[in-house]
Protein backbone atom coordinates (compact mmCIF):
# COMPACT_ATOMS: atom_id res chain seq x y z
CA UNK A 1 0.00 0.00 0.00
CA UNK A 2 2.74 2.36 1.02
CA UNK A 3 4.77 1.42 -2.00
CA UNK A 4 1.83 2.06 -4.35
CA UNK A 5 1.40 5.60 -2.97
CA UNK A 6 5.05 6.40 -3.26
CA UNK A 7 5.41 5.33 -6.87
CA UNK A 8 3.86 8.44 -8.51
CA UNK A 9 5.98 10.71 -6.37
CA UNK A 10 9.06 8.68 -7.08
CA UNK A 11 8.44 9.00 -10.80
CA UNK A 12 7.93 12.74 -10.43
CA UNK A 13 11.08 12.98 -8.32
CA UNK A 14 13.26 11.29 -10.87
CA UNK A 15 11.65 13.07 -13.80
CA UNK A 16 12.32 16.45 -12.23
CA UNK A 17 15.77 15.45 -11.08
CA UNK A 18 16.88 14.33 -14.46
CA UNK A 19 15.32 17.02 -16.56
CA UNK A 20 17.69 19.72 -17.69
CA UNK A 21 16.96 23.24 -16.58
CA UNK A 22 18.59 24.62 -19.69
CA UNK A 23 16.53 25.49 -22.68
CA UNK A 24 16.45 23.01 -25.48
CA UNK A 25 19.33 23.71 -27.84
CA UNK A 26 18.01 25.50 -30.85
CA UNK A 27 18.46 23.51 -33.99
CA UNK A 28 20.18 25.57 -36.60
CA UNK A 29 18.31 25.85 -39.86
CA UNK A 30 19.91 24.12 -42.81
CA UNK A 31 22.09 26.65 -44.50
CA UNK A 32 23.97 26.02 -47.69
CA UNK A 33 26.69 28.39 -46.58
CA UNK A 34 27.63 25.72 -44.01
CA UNK A 35 28.38 23.27 -46.77
CA UNK A 36 31.89 22.09 -46.13
CA UNK A 37 34.75 20.87 -48.20
CA UNK A 38 36.96 18.84 -45.87
CA UNK A 39 40.42 17.47 -46.43
CA UNK A 40 41.72 14.63 -44.28
CA UNK A 41 45.34 13.54 -44.32
CA UNK A 42 45.57 9.82 -43.61
CA UNK A 43 48.95 8.31 -42.68
CA UNK A 44 49.70 4.97 -44.31
CA UNK A 45 52.36 2.31 -44.41
CA UNK A 46 51.93 0.80 -47.85
CA UNK A 47 48.31 -0.18 -48.26
CA UNK A 48 47.62 -0.17 -44.53
CA UNK A 49 46.97 2.58 -42.04
CA UNK A 50 50.05 3.63 -40.14
CA UNK A 51 49.95 2.50 -36.49
CA UNK A 52 49.25 5.40 -34.13
CA UNK A 53 52.32 7.56 -33.81
CA UNK A 54 53.82 7.09 -30.41
CA UNK A 55 53.72 3.30 -30.53
CA UNK A 56 57.02 1.55 -31.09
CA UNK A 57 55.87 -0.82 -33.80
CA UNK A 58 58.80 -1.39 -36.16
CA UNK A 59 57.74 -1.66 -39.80
CA UNK A 60 59.74 -3.10 -42.68
CA UNK A 61 61.44 -0.74 -45.07
CA UNK A 62 63.85 -0.79 -47.98
CA UNK A 63 67.15 -2.62 -47.48
CA UNK A 64 66.03 -4.97 -44.71
CA UNK A 65 65.76 -2.14 -42.21
CA UNK A 66 62.76 -1.46 -40.04
CA UNK A 67 61.46 1.82 -38.65
CA UNK A 68 58.91 3.59 -36.49
CA UNK A 69 57.36 6.99 -37.04
CA UNK A 70 57.36 9.08 -33.87
CA UNK A 71 56.68 12.51 -35.28
CA UNK A 72 55.41 13.63 -38.66
CA UNK A 73 54.47 17.24 -39.25
CA UNK A 74 54.17 19.46 -42.32
CA UNK A 75 53.67 23.13 -43.12
CA UNK A 76 51.65 23.56 -46.30
CA UNK A 77 51.28 26.68 -48.37
CA UNK A 78 49.18 27.44 -51.45
CA UNK A 79 46.90 24.66 -50.26
CA UNK A 80 44.22 24.74 -52.94
CA UNK A 81 41.83 23.03 -55.28
CA UNK A 82 42.46 23.12 -59.01
CA UNK A 83 39.42 23.46 -61.27
CA UNK A 84 38.96 21.69 -64.56
CA UNK A 85 39.78 24.98 -66.22
CA UNK A 86 43.03 25.20 -64.24
CA UNK A 87 41.87 27.97 -61.94
CA UNK A 88 43.03 27.88 -58.34
CA UNK A 89 40.69 27.96 -55.35
CA UNK A 90 42.73 28.64 -52.24
CA UNK A 91 41.64 26.68 -49.15
CA UNK A 92 41.41 29.14 -46.26
CA UNK A 93 44.42 31.40 -46.47
CA UNK A 94 46.40 28.62 -48.12
CA UNK A 95 48.47 27.74 -45.05
CA UNK A 96 47.99 24.60 -43.04
CA UNK A 97 49.83 22.67 -40.36
CA UNK A 98 49.41 18.89 -40.49
CA UNK A 99 50.56 16.90 -37.48
CA UNK A 100 49.85 13.19 -37.45
CA UNK A 101 51.02 12.65 -33.87
CA UNK A 102 48.66 15.33 -32.60
CA UNK A 103 45.85 14.08 -34.86
CA UNK A 104 45.67 17.46 -36.51
CA UNK A 105 44.74 15.92 -39.82
CA UNK A 106 41.29 17.12 -40.90
CA UNK A 107 40.52 20.61 -42.12
CA UNK A 108 37.12 22.05 -43.01
CA UNK A 109 36.59 24.86 -45.49
CA UNK A 110 33.49 26.88 -46.28
CA UNK A 111 32.59 28.99 -49.29
CA UNK A 112 34.18 26.70 -51.82
CA UNK A 113 32.62 27.38 -55.25
CA UNK A 114 30.57 24.61 -56.76
CA UNK A 115 32.00 23.10 -59.89
CA UNK A 116 34.22 20.43 -61.32
CA UNK A 117 37.72 20.02 -59.99
CA UNK A 118 40.67 17.96 -61.06
CA UNK A 119 42.81 17.77 -57.96
CA UNK A 120 44.50 19.27 -54.92
CA UNK A 121 47.71 21.26 -54.89
CA UNK A 122 50.05 22.26 -52.07
CA UNK A 123 53.62 23.09 -51.39
CA UNK A 124 55.68 21.76 -48.51
CA UNK A 125 57.35 25.01 -47.61
CA UNK A 126 56.85 28.73 -47.82
CA UNK A 127 57.63 31.75 -49.95
CA UNK A 128 60.96 33.33 -49.14
CA UNK A 129 59.42 36.49 -47.72
CA UNK A 130 57.27 34.47 -45.35
CA UNK A 131 60.00 31.98 -44.51
CA UNK A 132 62.47 34.70 -43.62
CA UNK A 133 59.91 37.18 -42.33
CA UNK A 134 59.02 37.92 -38.74
CA UNK A 135 57.45 34.73 -37.29
CA UNK A 136 55.97 36.64 -34.34
CA UNK A 137 53.32 38.38 -36.43
CA UNK A 138 51.06 35.36 -36.77
CA UNK A 139 48.03 34.94 -34.49
CA UNK A 140 48.37 32.40 -31.72
CA UNK A 141 46.30 29.76 -33.54
CA UNK A 142 47.74 30.27 -37.03
CA UNK A 143 49.70 27.43 -38.68
CA UNK A 144 52.69 29.75 -39.04
CA UNK A 145 52.87 30.63 -35.33
CA UNK A 146 56.01 28.86 -34.05
CA UNK A 147 54.68 28.82 -30.50
CA UNK A 148 51.91 26.56 -31.76
CA UNK A 149 53.82 24.27 -34.10
CA UNK A 150 57.43 24.33 -32.93
CA UNK A 151 58.35 24.33 -36.62
CA UNK A 152 60.79 27.22 -36.66
CA UNK A 153 64.54 27.16 -36.34
CA UNK A 154 64.78 30.29 -34.24
CA UNK A 155 68.52 30.58 -34.37
CA UNK A 156 69.18 30.58 -38.09
CA UNK A 157 65.80 31.89 -39.08
CA UNK A 158 63.23 30.24 -41.26
CA UNK A 159 60.72 27.50 -40.78
CA UNK A 160 60.97 23.73 -40.70
CA UNK A 161 58.67 22.77 -43.56
CA UNK A 162 58.53 19.13 -42.81
CA UNK A 163 59.58 17.03 -39.82
CA UNK A 164 59.77 13.25 -40.13
CA UNK A 165 61.34 11.43 -37.18
CA UNK A 166 61.46 8.05 -35.56
CA UNK A 167 63.63 5.07 -34.70
CA UNK A 168 65.14 2.44 -36.98
CA UNK A 169 66.94 -0.88 -36.82
CA UNK A 170 69.54 -1.76 -39.42
CA UNK A 171 68.49 -5.41 -39.12
CA UNK A 172 66.36 -7.54 -36.88
CA UNK A 173 69.03 -8.02 -34.25
CA UNK A 174 70.43 -4.49 -34.32
CA UNK A 175 69.85 -1.96 -31.58
CA UNK A 176 67.50 0.86 -32.48
CA UNK A 177 68.74 4.35 -33.30
CA UNK A 178 66.97 7.54 -34.20
CA UNK A 179 66.45 9.14 -37.57
CA UNK A 180 65.44 12.74 -38.14
CA UNK A 181 64.62 14.60 -41.32
CA UNK A 182 63.89 18.29 -41.03
CA UNK A 183 63.21 19.92 -44.37
CA UNK A 184 64.03 23.60 -44.56
CA UNK A 185 65.51 26.41 -46.69
CA UNK A 186 64.16 27.67 -50.00
CA UNK A 187 66.21 25.06 -51.84
CA UNK A 188 63.92 22.37 -50.49
CA UNK A 189 60.48 23.84 -51.01
CA UNK A 190 58.60 21.13 -52.88
CA UNK A 191 55.22 21.13 -54.60
CA UNK A 192 52.59 18.46 -55.08
CA UNK A 193 49.62 18.12 -57.38
CA UNK A 194 47.36 15.23 -56.49
CA UNK A 195 45.03 14.51 -59.40
CA UNK A 196 41.47 13.22 -59.07
CA UNK A 197 38.38 14.42 -60.90
CA UNK A 198 35.42 15.29 -58.71
CA UNK A 199 32.47 17.63 -58.59
CA UNK A 200 31.58 19.84 -55.66
CA UNK A 201 27.84 20.37 -55.82
CA UNK A 202 25.15 20.98 -53.26
CA UNK A 203 26.47 18.68 -50.55
CA UNK A 204 29.51 18.67 -48.33
CA UNK A 205 32.44 16.60 -49.52
CA UNK A 206 35.50 15.11 -47.89
CA UNK A 207 38.76 14.47 -49.70
CA UNK A 208 41.21 11.96 -48.29
CA UNK A 209 44.90 12.53 -48.93
CA UNK A 210 46.94 9.47 -48.09
CA UNK A 211 50.54 9.86 -46.97
CA UNK A 212 52.56 6.65 -47.26
CA UNK A 213 55.56 6.75 -44.92
CA UNK A 214 57.21 3.80 -46.63
CA UNK A 215 57.55 5.70 -49.90
CA UNK A 216 60.00 8.16 -48.34
CA UNK A 217 62.61 5.44 -48.25
CA UNK A 218 62.19 3.58 -51.50
CA UNK A 219 60.50 5.18 -54.47
CA UNK A 220 62.45 5.91 -56.60
CA UNK A 221 65.51 6.35 -54.35
CA UNK A 222 66.35 3.57 -51.96
CA UNK A 223 67.45 5.18 -48.68
CA UNK A 224 69.40 3.24 -46.08
CA UNK A 225 69.22 4.86 -42.68
CA UNK A 226 72.29 3.01 -41.45
CA UNK A 227 74.27 5.05 -43.98
CA UNK A 228 72.85 8.37 -42.86
CA UNK A 229 69.85 9.04 -40.69
CA UNK A 230 69.89 12.79 -40.15
CA UNK A 231 69.25 15.71 -42.43
CA UNK A 232 68.49 19.24 -41.40
CA UNK A 233 68.87 20.43 -44.98
CA UNK A 234 72.32 21.91 -44.39
CA UNK A 235 75.76 20.72 -45.47
CA UNK A 236 76.50 18.75 -48.61
CA UNK A 237 75.82 15.22 -47.38
CA UNK A 238 72.58 16.31 -45.69
CA UNK A 239 71.45 18.09 -48.83
CA UNK A 240 72.02 15.00 -50.97
CA UNK A 241 69.97 12.94 -48.54
CA UNK A 242 67.20 15.54 -48.37
CA UNK A 243 67.04 15.76 -52.16
CA UNK A 244 66.56 12.00 -52.36
CA UNK A 245 63.91 12.06 -49.67
CA UNK A 246 61.95 14.86 -51.31
CA UNK A 247 62.18 13.17 -54.67
CA UNK A 248 60.59 10.15 -53.03
CA UNK A 249 58.00 12.39 -51.39
CA UNK A 250 56.32 12.76 -54.77
CA UNK A 251 55.25 9.15 -54.27
CA UNK A 252 54.18 9.68 -50.67
CA UNK A 253 51.03 11.70 -51.21
CA UNK A 254 47.95 10.70 -53.21
CA UNK A 255 44.40 11.98 -53.39
CA UNK A 256 42.54 8.72 -52.96
CA UNK A 257 38.91 9.60 -52.66
CA UNK A 258 36.45 12.45 -52.56
CA UNK A 259 33.08 11.50 -51.16
Amino acid sequence: MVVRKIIPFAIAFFALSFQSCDKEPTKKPVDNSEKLFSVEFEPHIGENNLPPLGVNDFMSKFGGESFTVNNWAMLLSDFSLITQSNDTVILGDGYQWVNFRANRTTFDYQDIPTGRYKGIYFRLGLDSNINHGDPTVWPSDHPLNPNLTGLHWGWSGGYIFHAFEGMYKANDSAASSGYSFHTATMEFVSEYFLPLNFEFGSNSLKAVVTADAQQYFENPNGILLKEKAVSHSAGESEKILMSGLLSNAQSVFALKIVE
Partner: protein
Amino acid sequence: MKKFSSIFFVLVVIVAFIGCGKEENAELNNSSFSPTLIDPTEIFPSEFGMPNLPKDNPFTEEGVYLGRMLFYDPVLSIDSTVSCASCHKQEFAFGDPAPLSVGVFGLKTGRNAPALFNMAYSQKFFWDARVSRLRDLVFEPIQAHNEMAMTLPLLETRLNEIPRYKRHFELAFNRAPNVMDMSLALEQFLLSLVSKDSKFNEFFPGNNPSLLTASELRGAFLFNGLVDFDENNVTKGADCFHCHGGELAQQNNPLMGGIANNGLDPYPTDLGFGKITNKEQDMGTFKAPSLLNIAVTGPYMHDGRFTTLEQVINHYSDSVHYENPSIHPQMSAHGGIQLNLSQQQKDDLLAYLLTMTDTAFLNNPEYSNPFKP
Protein backbone atom coordinates in the same frame (compact mmCIF):
# COMPACT_ATOMS: atom_id res chain seq x y z
CA MET B 1 0.92 7.80 5.45
CA LYS B 2 -0.55 11.09 4.21
CA LYS B 3 2.15 12.91 6.13
CA PHE B 4 4.79 10.75 4.50
CA SER B 5 3.44 11.53 1.03
CA SER B 6 3.42 15.23 1.75
CA ILE B 7 7.00 15.16 2.89
CA PHE B 8 7.95 13.28 -0.23
CA PHE B 9 6.18 15.86 -2.40
CA VAL B 10 8.00 18.71 -0.69
CA LEU B 11 11.26 16.87 -1.28
CA VAL B 12 10.48 16.56 -4.97
CA VAL B 13 9.82 20.27 -5.27
CA ILE B 14 12.98 21.17 -3.37
CA VAL B 15 15.12 18.93 -5.55
CA ALA B 16 13.63 20.43 -8.66
CA PHE B 17 14.29 23.97 -7.53
CA ILE B 18 17.80 23.21 -6.37
CA GLY B 19 18.56 21.94 -9.84
CA CYS B 20 17.39 25.17 -11.39
CA GLY B 21 18.95 27.46 -8.84
CA LYS B 22 21.61 29.99 -9.59
CA GLU B 23 25.24 29.02 -9.36
CA GLU B 24 26.61 28.82 -5.89
CA ASN B 25 29.09 31.59 -6.49
CA ALA B 26 26.57 34.18 -7.46
CA GLU B 27 27.79 37.60 -8.42
CA LEU B 28 27.68 40.23 -5.74
CA ASN B 29 25.37 43.15 -6.27
CA ASN B 30 28.11 45.57 -7.14
CA SER B 31 27.07 47.79 -10.01
CA SER B 32 30.45 49.52 -10.05
CA PHE B 33 32.36 46.29 -10.80
CA SER B 34 34.91 47.20 -13.43
CA PRO B 35 38.26 45.45 -13.16
CA THR B 36 41.11 47.03 -15.07
CA LEU B 37 41.90 44.98 -18.14
CA ILE B 38 45.55 44.53 -19.03
CA ASP B 39 46.48 44.42 -22.70
CA PRO B 40 48.50 41.20 -23.17
CA THR B 41 50.95 43.12 -25.37
CA GLU B 42 51.98 44.94 -22.17
CA ILE B 43 52.97 41.59 -20.66
CA PHE B 44 54.39 39.59 -23.54
CA PRO B 45 57.26 40.96 -25.61
CA SER B 46 56.67 41.15 -29.34
CA GLU B 47 59.88 39.24 -30.05
CA PHE B 48 58.41 36.14 -28.40
CA GLY B 49 55.25 36.19 -30.55
CA MET B 50 51.79 36.10 -29.07
CA PRO B 51 51.07 33.05 -26.92
CA ASN B 52 47.79 31.19 -27.04
CA LEU B 53 46.09 32.68 -23.98
CA PRO B 54 42.89 31.41 -22.37
CA LYS B 55 40.11 33.51 -23.87
CA ASP B 56 37.84 33.14 -20.86
CA ASN B 57 40.28 34.52 -18.31
CA PRO B 58 41.49 37.94 -19.47
CA PHE B 59 44.25 39.61 -17.53
CA THR B 60 43.07 42.24 -15.07
CA GLU B 61 45.17 44.17 -12.61
CA GLU B 62 42.91 42.92 -9.82
CA GLY B 63 43.06 39.30 -10.97
CA VAL B 64 46.84 39.22 -11.33
CA TYR B 65 47.29 40.86 -7.92
CA LEU B 66 44.88 38.44 -6.26
CA GLY B 67 46.77 35.56 -7.84
CA ARG B 68 50.01 36.98 -6.53
CA MET B 69 48.57 37.23 -3.00
CA LEU B 70 47.36 33.66 -3.14
CA PHE B 71 50.69 32.43 -4.51
CA TYR B 72 52.55 33.78 -1.50
CA ASP B 73 49.97 32.95 1.15
CA PRO B 74 50.54 29.84 3.34
CA VAL B 75 46.87 29.92 4.22
CA LEU B 76 46.41 27.70 1.18
CA SER B 77 47.99 24.78 3.06
CA ILE B 78 46.27 22.69 5.70
CA ASP B 79 48.46 23.92 8.56
CA SER B 80 49.14 27.37 7.09
CA THR B 81 52.87 26.70 6.82
CA VAL B 82 53.42 26.17 3.11
CA SER B 83 52.65 28.52 0.25
CA CYS B 84 53.29 28.07 -3.47
CA ALA B 85 56.29 30.33 -2.97
CA SER B 86 57.74 27.96 -0.39
CA CYS B 87 58.85 25.67 -3.23
CA HIS B 88 58.89 28.22 -6.05
CA LYS B 89 61.23 30.96 -4.94
CA GLN B 90 61.67 34.05 -7.08
CA GLU B 91 65.43 34.27 -6.58
CA PHE B 92 65.68 30.80 -8.13
CA ALA B 93 63.41 31.69 -11.09
CA PHE B 94 60.56 30.30 -9.00
CA GLY B 95 62.33 26.96 -8.66
CA ASP B 96 63.70 25.28 -5.55
CA PRO B 97 67.39 24.68 -4.79
CA ALA B 98 66.43 21.49 -2.96
CA PRO B 99 66.32 18.33 -5.11
CA LEU B 100 62.94 17.52 -3.62
CA SER B 101 60.86 20.20 -1.98
CA VAL B 102 59.47 19.98 1.54
CA GLY B 103 55.71 20.22 1.97
CA VAL B 104 53.51 20.16 5.06
CA PHE B 105 54.59 18.03 8.02
CA GLY B 106 58.07 17.80 6.54
CA LEU B 107 56.94 15.52 3.72
CA LYS B 108 58.93 15.61 0.50
CA THR B 109 57.68 15.97 -3.06
CA GLY B 110 58.18 13.24 -5.65
CA ARG B 111 60.08 15.39 -8.13
CA ASN B 112 62.14 18.55 -8.27
CA ALA B 113 60.06 21.73 -8.26
CA PRO B 114 60.22 23.18 -11.79
CA ALA B 115 61.00 26.82 -12.40
CA LEU B 116 58.04 29.00 -13.29
CA PHE B 117 58.24 31.55 -16.08
CA ASN B 118 57.12 32.01 -19.68
CA MET B 119 54.44 29.41 -19.07
CA ALA B 120 52.10 31.21 -21.46
CA TYR B 121 54.14 29.66 -24.27
CA SER B 122 53.93 26.11 -22.97
CA GLN B 123 51.21 23.68 -23.93
CA LYS B 124 51.86 21.21 -21.12
CA PHE B 125 52.74 21.54 -17.44
CA PHE B 126 54.41 19.48 -14.71
CA TRP B 127 57.47 17.36 -15.41
CA ASP B 128 55.24 14.61 -16.75
CA ALA B 129 53.20 17.01 -18.88
CA ARG B 130 49.95 15.75 -17.40
CA VAL B 131 48.11 19.06 -17.32
CA SER B 132 47.30 21.48 -20.12
CA ARG B 133 45.86 24.43 -18.20
CA LEU B 134 47.36 26.32 -15.29
CA ARG B 135 43.96 26.71 -13.68
CA ASP B 136 43.85 22.92 -13.42
CA LEU B 137 47.46 22.63 -12.33
CA VAL B 138 47.04 24.74 -9.20
CA PHE B 139 44.61 22.32 -7.61
CA GLU B 140 47.16 19.51 -7.54
CA PRO B 141 49.80 20.92 -5.16
CA ILE B 142 47.11 22.49 -3.02
CA GLN B 143 45.50 19.09 -2.45
CA ALA B 144 48.58 16.84 -2.60
CA HIS B 145 49.15 15.20 0.77
CA ASN B 146 52.88 15.89 0.66
CA GLU B 147 52.64 19.48 -0.51
CA MET B 148 49.81 21.58 0.92
CA ALA B 149 47.33 18.83 1.90
CA MET B 150 44.40 21.22 1.79
CA THR B 151 40.79 20.34 1.04
CA LEU B 152 38.90 22.64 -1.25
CA PRO B 153 35.83 23.10 1.00
CA LEU B 154 38.05 24.05 3.91
CA LEU B 155 40.09 26.38 1.74
CA GLU B 156 36.97 28.13 0.49
CA THR B 157 35.71 28.54 4.03
CA ARG B 158 39.06 29.85 5.15
CA LEU B 159 39.30 32.39 2.32
CA ASN B 160 35.82 33.64 3.17
CA GLU B 161 36.90 34.26 6.74
CA ILE B 162 39.75 36.56 5.71
CA PRO B 163 38.62 40.15 5.05
CA ARG B 164 41.34 40.94 2.54
CA TYR B 165 40.28 38.04 0.36
CA LYS B 166 36.62 39.04 0.55
CA ARG B 167 37.67 42.43 -0.75
CA HIS B 168 40.11 41.25 -3.43
CA PHE B 169 37.85 38.50 -4.82
CA GLU B 170 35.12 41.11 -5.13
CA LEU B 171 37.50 43.49 -6.89
CA ALA B 172 38.73 40.81 -9.28
CA PHE B 173 35.61 38.76 -9.92
CA ASN B 174 32.68 40.49 -8.19
CA ARG B 175 32.13 37.35 -6.18
CA ALA B 176 32.78 36.03 -2.72
CA PRO B 177 35.97 33.98 -2.37
CA ASN B 178 35.69 30.59 -4.06
CA VAL B 179 38.19 28.05 -5.30
CA MET B 180 37.27 28.33 -8.98
CA ASP B 181 38.03 32.04 -9.09
CA MET B 182 41.11 31.31 -6.98
CA SER B 183 42.38 29.06 -9.76
CA LEU B 184 41.71 31.74 -12.37
CA ALA B 185 43.56 34.37 -10.35
CA LEU B 186 46.52 32.06 -9.89
CA GLU B 187 46.43 31.31 -13.61
CA GLN B 188 46.60 35.03 -14.38
CA PHE B 189 49.55 35.55 -12.06
CA LEU B 190 51.47 32.51 -13.32
CA LEU B 191 50.91 33.48 -16.96
CA SER B 192 52.19 36.98 -16.19
CA LEU B 193 55.61 35.67 -15.12
CA VAL B 194 57.72 36.62 -18.12
CA SER B 195 61.50 36.34 -18.33
CA LYS B 196 62.86 38.21 -21.34
CA ASP B 197 65.82 40.35 -20.36
CA SER B 198 68.83 38.06 -20.23
CA LYS B 199 71.97 38.74 -22.22
CA PHE B 200 70.97 35.75 -24.33
CA ASN B 201 67.67 37.43 -25.21
CA GLU B 202 69.50 40.58 -26.23
CA PHE B 203 71.84 38.57 -28.44
CA PHE B 204 69.26 36.27 -29.96
CA PRO B 205 68.88 35.43 -32.82
CA GLY B 206 72.49 36.21 -33.39
CA ASN B 207 72.11 39.61 -34.90
CA ASN B 208 74.74 41.07 -32.65
CA PRO B 209 77.52 38.56 -31.93
CA SER B 210 79.64 41.34 -30.45
CA LEU B 211 77.47 41.15 -27.35
CA LEU B 212 79.02 37.78 -26.53
CA THR B 213 82.54 36.91 -25.51
CA ALA B 214 84.49 34.59 -27.78
CA SER B 215 83.79 31.66 -25.48
CA GLU B 216 80.06 32.43 -25.26
CA LEU B 217 79.87 32.71 -29.04
CA ARG B 218 81.59 29.37 -29.53
CA GLY B 219 79.12 27.94 -27.04
CA ALA B 220 76.25 29.42 -29.04
CA PHE B 221 77.44 27.67 -32.18
CA LEU B 222 77.81 24.39 -30.34
CA PHE B 223 74.41 24.77 -28.69
CA ASN B 224 72.69 25.42 -32.00
CA GLY B 225 74.29 22.60 -33.92
CA LEU B 226 76.21 24.86 -36.23
CA VAL B 227 79.58 23.18 -35.78
CA ASP B 228 80.78 20.23 -37.79
CA PHE B 229 83.41 18.69 -35.59
CA ASP B 230 82.93 15.07 -36.44
CA GLU B 231 85.20 13.77 -39.18
CA ASN B 232 82.34 11.76 -40.65
CA ASN B 233 80.11 14.81 -40.66
CA VAL B 234 77.66 12.93 -38.45
CA THR B 235 77.57 15.13 -35.39
CA LYS B 236 76.71 18.78 -35.64
CA GLY B 237 77.73 20.54 -32.48
CA ALA B 238 76.07 19.70 -29.21
CA ASP B 239 72.61 20.05 -30.78
CA CYS B 240 70.87 21.38 -27.68
CA PHE B 241 68.53 23.59 -29.65
CA HIS B 242 66.11 20.96 -30.85
CA CYS B 243 64.65 20.68 -27.35
CA HIS B 244 65.80 24.02 -25.91
CA GLY B 245 65.74 26.29 -28.94
CA GLY B 246 64.45 29.67 -29.93
CA GLU B 247 64.33 32.85 -27.93
CA LEU B 248 62.54 31.07 -25.11
CA ALA B 249 65.22 28.37 -24.99
CA GLN B 250 62.48 25.79 -24.94
CA GLN B 251 60.51 23.73 -27.42
CA ASN B 252 56.91 24.86 -27.05
CA ASN B 253 55.48 21.98 -29.03
CA PRO B 254 55.51 18.77 -26.97
CA LEU B 255 55.77 16.75 -30.17
CA MET B 256 58.87 18.48 -31.47
CA GLY B 257 61.11 17.72 -28.51
CA GLY B 258 59.05 19.53 -25.88
CA ILE B 259 58.65 16.18 -24.12
CA ALA B 260 61.62 13.86 -24.40
CA ASN B 261 63.67 11.08 -22.87
CA ASN B 262 67.24 12.33 -22.67
CA GLY B 263 68.90 9.04 -21.78
CA LEU B 264 69.46 9.58 -18.07
CA ASP B 265 69.14 5.88 -17.29
CA PRO B 266 69.45 2.57 -19.16
CA TYR B 267 65.76 2.00 -18.51
CA PRO B 268 63.16 4.46 -17.28
CA THR B 269 62.88 4.41 -13.52
CA ASP B 270 60.34 7.19 -13.18
CA LEU B 271 57.90 6.62 -16.06
CA GLY B 272 57.07 10.31 -16.37
CA PHE B 273 54.78 11.13 -19.31
CA GLY B 274 54.57 7.40 -20.08
CA LYS B 275 52.59 6.87 -16.91
CA ILE B 276 50.04 9.34 -18.28
CA THR B 277 49.79 7.95 -21.82
CA ASN B 278 50.72 4.31 -21.14
CA LYS B 279 52.60 4.33 -24.45
CA GLU B 280 55.91 2.54 -24.65
CA GLN B 281 57.49 5.41 -26.51
CA ASP B 282 56.63 7.89 -23.75
CA MET B 283 58.13 5.90 -20.88
CA GLY B 284 60.68 7.96 -19.01
CA THR B 285 59.94 11.09 -21.01
CA PHE B 286 59.63 14.45 -19.32
CA LYS B 287 58.94 18.02 -20.27
CA ALA B 288 62.12 19.65 -21.53
CA PRO B 289 62.42 22.86 -19.50
CA SER B 290 63.41 26.27 -20.77
CA LEU B 291 67.08 26.94 -20.21
CA LEU B 292 66.51 30.59 -19.42
CA ASN B 293 67.80 31.28 -15.90
CA ILE B 294 69.37 27.83 -15.93
CA ALA B 295 72.22 29.03 -13.72
CA VAL B 296 69.82 29.47 -10.80
CA THR B 297 67.34 26.64 -11.36
CA GLY B 298 69.48 23.75 -10.15
CA PRO B 299 69.53 21.02 -9.13
CA TYR B 300 68.73 19.68 -12.57
CA MET B 301 66.51 17.05 -14.20
CA HIS B 302 63.15 15.87 -12.92
CA ASP B 303 64.72 14.25 -9.89
CA GLY B 304 67.30 16.91 -9.20
CA ARG B 305 70.12 14.40 -9.67
CA PHE B 306 72.66 16.90 -11.01
CA THR B 307 73.70 19.70 -8.74
CA THR B 308 75.84 21.63 -11.22
CA LEU B 309 75.62 22.63 -14.86
CA GLU B 310 79.00 20.98 -15.39
CA GLN B 311 77.41 17.66 -14.43
CA VAL B 312 74.57 18.30 -16.86
CA ILE B 313 76.97 19.02 -19.71
CA ASN B 314 79.01 15.95 -18.83
CA HIS B 315 75.85 13.85 -19.06
CA TYR B 316 75.03 15.03 -22.56
CA SER B 317 78.65 14.81 -23.65
CA ASP B 318 79.78 11.54 -22.17
CA SER B 319 77.09 9.54 -20.42
CA VAL B 320 73.85 9.41 -22.41
CA HIS B 321 72.19 6.00 -22.20
CA TYR B 322 71.44 5.55 -25.87
CA GLU B 323 70.24 2.04 -25.11
CA ASN B 324 67.22 3.47 -23.30
CA PRO B 325 64.31 2.11 -25.37
CA SER B 326 62.36 5.35 -25.34
CA ILE B 327 65.21 7.79 -25.91
CA HIS B 328 64.13 10.64 -28.16
CA PRO B 329 64.99 10.00 -31.83
CA GLN B 330 66.72 13.35 -32.02
CA MET B 331 69.05 12.31 -29.20
CA SER B 332 70.15 9.09 -30.86
CA ALA B 333 69.93 10.24 -34.47
CA HIS B 334 73.62 11.04 -34.46
CA GLY B 335 74.62 7.41 -34.47
CA GLY B 336 74.11 6.74 -30.80
CA ILE B 337 77.67 7.67 -29.93
CA GLN B 338 78.78 9.95 -27.11
CA LEU B 339 79.64 13.48 -28.15
CA ASN B 340 82.86 13.45 -26.14
CA LEU B 341 83.13 17.22 -26.06
CA SER B 342 86.54 18.63 -25.21
CA GLN B 343 86.97 20.55 -21.98
CA GLN B 344 87.15 23.76 -24.00
CA GLN B 345 83.84 22.94 -25.67
CA LYS B 346 82.26 22.17 -22.32
CA ASP B 347 83.52 25.47 -20.95
CA ASP B 348 82.15 27.29 -23.98
CA LEU B 349 78.76 25.69 -23.62
CA LEU B 350 78.67 26.62 -19.96
CA ALA B 351 79.62 30.20 -20.77
CA TYR B 352 76.74 30.40 -23.24
CA LEU B 353 74.27 28.93 -20.73
CA LEU B 354 75.31 31.54 -18.19
CA THR B 355 74.21 34.32 -20.58
CA MET B 356 70.63 33.14 -20.06
CA THR B 357 70.24 34.50 -16.55
CA ASP B 358 67.67 37.28 -16.34
CA THR B 359 68.43 39.20 -13.16
CA ALA B 360 65.66 41.70 -13.87
CA PHE B 361 63.18 38.83 -13.72
CA LEU B 362 64.70 37.40 -10.56
CA ASN B 363 64.33 40.76 -8.84
CA ASN B 364 61.17 42.07 -10.46
CA PRO B 365 59.12 43.64 -7.63
CA GLU B 366 55.90 42.93 -9.52
CA TYR B 367 56.43 39.23 -8.91
CA SER B 368 57.58 39.50 -5.31
CA ASN B 369 55.79 38.71 -2.07
CA PRO B 370 53.06 41.35 -1.69
CA PHE B 371 52.85 40.77 2.05
CA LYS B 372 56.40 41.98 2.62
CA PRO B 373 56.86 45.71 3.01
